[in-house]
């Protein structure tokens, strides 16, 4: 008997919860009055958001010149932030869609938050392509639409146009996926709600979910289909984003390696962002039983994997530069490592490659604060990765007479902070009004690893 128990895999959810408990545990924080800590966090993030809004307002009113760009360096913070946020998004889709298809049951307690993160991240990302244009009020010209210019379409050869399609698709699908997944839980909220407005609102949003057998069946099918739809997006979106650089002639950008490199980087950064958020959430909302050390452990393993892929890409870039025999290419990479912006490069390497290696040790994976700190490092490192790729390459291209340096202005920094403000504001509101854990799904894996009947994985 004892042996039998020992052979079982560890359960996914600790504390031997009853179904009712699950519902309660997850919904309680929403129904209780928000803690002071929450208010504090919201105040902080929303003031950041306001700062960002002011910065963007000023920039649009006065001109892109309020950024530190120049005739040599046409992109810097703007596109760096864009790629950074798009990257963050990927983990969400990966967890919710890919892991779903791979029947990774442990995902159930993190997928909801991860998907939310995806959507918010894509929102943040979406701002930058628009505001980085010289005439944002004409940004809609990037979409093909019938016009009186006889007719004048967009340039389908331009990666920026592909971006438009990729990102809008990505956002739509992720949002839909998230919302469908929310339906049963919204219904739960509706049924538990005491406040009238909450009942009415949840009622409308839950589209009259009644938990009927047929409802569940349809739900499962749609969810599976959307998962199937979402999975290729994980690959496609960042591949296309990477083409913004890969299709150019600029040494340091013009690299066939970019698509896989960027996708890996995206999942890497996304995973660490999920870790960051989950670790905060489980602490604040006392969800340790649901988001267990085992979840953190698994995600940490994914982080190591992607970190190594990214590291390999860094090495490959240098090798290809050497192998290409193009002195421009070789110089650009030497310049990255040893040129005037070496600090950015080494920040990137240490944050993305060296520090994550600590996660090889089980003891560190099990020690939550360490994992948290590492995940923060990775976020910083991944931001710098994009910064290094964009800025150092631009600052030292073909003609020495063009070489110049770049320094961000106050406006740019404020805009970056503003994007974080937006992200966290949205996330805090999400924690407040939506179950951060997919109640229905968790119930499905509740007995997992406890009774003998269920042992699949």
């Amino acid at each position, binding site marked *: 008997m004892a042996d039998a128990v020992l052979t079982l895999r560890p359960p996914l959810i600790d504390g031997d919860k009853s179904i009712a408990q699950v519902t309660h545990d997850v919904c309680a924080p929403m129904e209780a009055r928000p803690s002071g800590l929450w208010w504090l966090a919201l105040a902080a993030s929303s003031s950041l958001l306001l700062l960002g809004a002011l910065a963007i307002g000023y920039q649009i009113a006065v001109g892109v010149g309020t950024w530190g760009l120049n005739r040599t360096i046409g992109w810097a913070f703007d596109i760096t932030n864009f790629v950074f946020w798009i990257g963050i998004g990927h983990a969400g889709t990966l967890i919710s869609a890919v892991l779903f298809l791979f029947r990774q049951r442990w995902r159930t307690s993190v997928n909801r938050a991860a998907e939310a993160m995806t959507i918010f991240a894509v929102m943040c990302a979406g701002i930058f392509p628009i505001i980085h244009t010289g005439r944002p009020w004409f940004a809609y010209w990037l979409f093909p639409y019938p*016009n*009186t*210019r*006889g*007719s*004048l379409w967009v340039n389908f050869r331009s990666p920026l146009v592909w971006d438009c399609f990729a990102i809008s698709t990505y956002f739509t699908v992720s949002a839909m996926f998230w919302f469908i997944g929310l339906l049963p839980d919204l219904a739960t909220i509706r049924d538990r709600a005491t406040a009238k407005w909450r009942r009415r609102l949840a009622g409308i949003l839950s589209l009259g979910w009644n938990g009927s057998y047929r409802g569940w069946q349809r739900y499962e099918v749609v969810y599976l289909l959307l998962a199937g739809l979402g999975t290729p997006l994980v690959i496609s979106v960042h591949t296309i984003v990477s083409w913004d650089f890969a299709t150019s002639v600029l040494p340091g950008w013009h690299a066939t390696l970019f698509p896989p490199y960027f996708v890996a980087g995206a999942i890497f950064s996304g995973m660490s962002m999920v870790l960051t958020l989950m670790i905060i959430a489980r602490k604040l909302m006392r969800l340790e039983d649901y988001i267990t050390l085992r979840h953190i452990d698994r995600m940490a393993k994914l982080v190591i994997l992607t970190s190594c892929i990214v590291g390999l890409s860094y090495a490959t870039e240098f090798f290809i530069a050497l192998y290409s025999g193009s002195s421009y290419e070789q110089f650009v990479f030497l310049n990255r490592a040893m040129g005037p912006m070496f600090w950015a490069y080494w920040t990137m390497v240490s944050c993305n490659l060296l520090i994550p290696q600590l996660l090889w040790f089980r003891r560190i994976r099990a020690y939550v604060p360490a994992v948290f700190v590492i995940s923060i490092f990775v976020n910083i490192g991944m931001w710098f990765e994009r910064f290094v790729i964009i800025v150092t390459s631009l600052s030292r291209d073909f003609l020495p007479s063009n070489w110049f340096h770049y320094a961000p202005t106050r406006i740019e920094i404020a805009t970056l902070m503003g994007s974080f403000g937006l992200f966290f504001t949205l996330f805090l509101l999400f924690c407040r009004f939506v179950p951060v854990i997919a109640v229905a799904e968790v119930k499905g894996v509740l007995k997992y690893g406890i009774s003998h009947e269920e042992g699949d994985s």
Partner: protein
Amino acid sequence: MKETANHSRVRKYLGSAFLTLVLLTALAFSLLVLVPKFSAYALPGNQRGYEPAQPIAFSHRLHAGELQVQCLYCHSGAERSRHAGIPATNVCMNCHRFVSASLGAIRAEDAAAKKEGREPRRIVSPEIQKIYDALAITDQMKPEPTKESRPIQWVKVHNLPDFVYFDHRPHVNAGVACQKCHGQVETMERVRQVEDLSMGWCVNCHRAVDRTGLDGKGNFTAASAPAAHGNTPVTHRVYASIDCSTCHY
């Protein structure tokens, strides 16, 4: 029992068919009503139909239509310059030095004078008087030192945004009729913009001309290119480029 079943089925069938029919007619009607409305809808910046009042009630119908004055007689710039140009006031004077009023009015005055047995006075129509005022001259064509001459401030009818560089020369010299863009001006009392002058409108005409040629001249093709490059001038063929820099620079 059975009948009723059939009956109901039939009724259901009929009902749905009827419904479909109703819906279809409704759709047809709405299309009939909406589509023309929609096509008539002008986008912002489209000034088709613009017909501003002018300082002088100059009638193109009278001058270009009835009197058959050639367009280029007054708008002589069209051949030589980007701007067709508004005629200088002394161009008006070529005729209006002598013509100061409508024939009817002058006849009437002559009749009246004969009746009263006096010299007929010179009749000057109020509109033509404005020309004389502009030049500060009397109806006897003598300068009026007291008045200061000031040019007539016509209101421009056909306006393009100024990132568009339209040039009359190639069009006029290629044989594009003025009416093609300006409409039947010779029938207008007051000039009205008849085309929307949108980019699409320009480009489509250029495309057409490139296919068909214009005014008896062939179109410029890659086949005709070598010749065009040697001695025979490009200009023996019509070539309406749709390069951006044809109009935008």
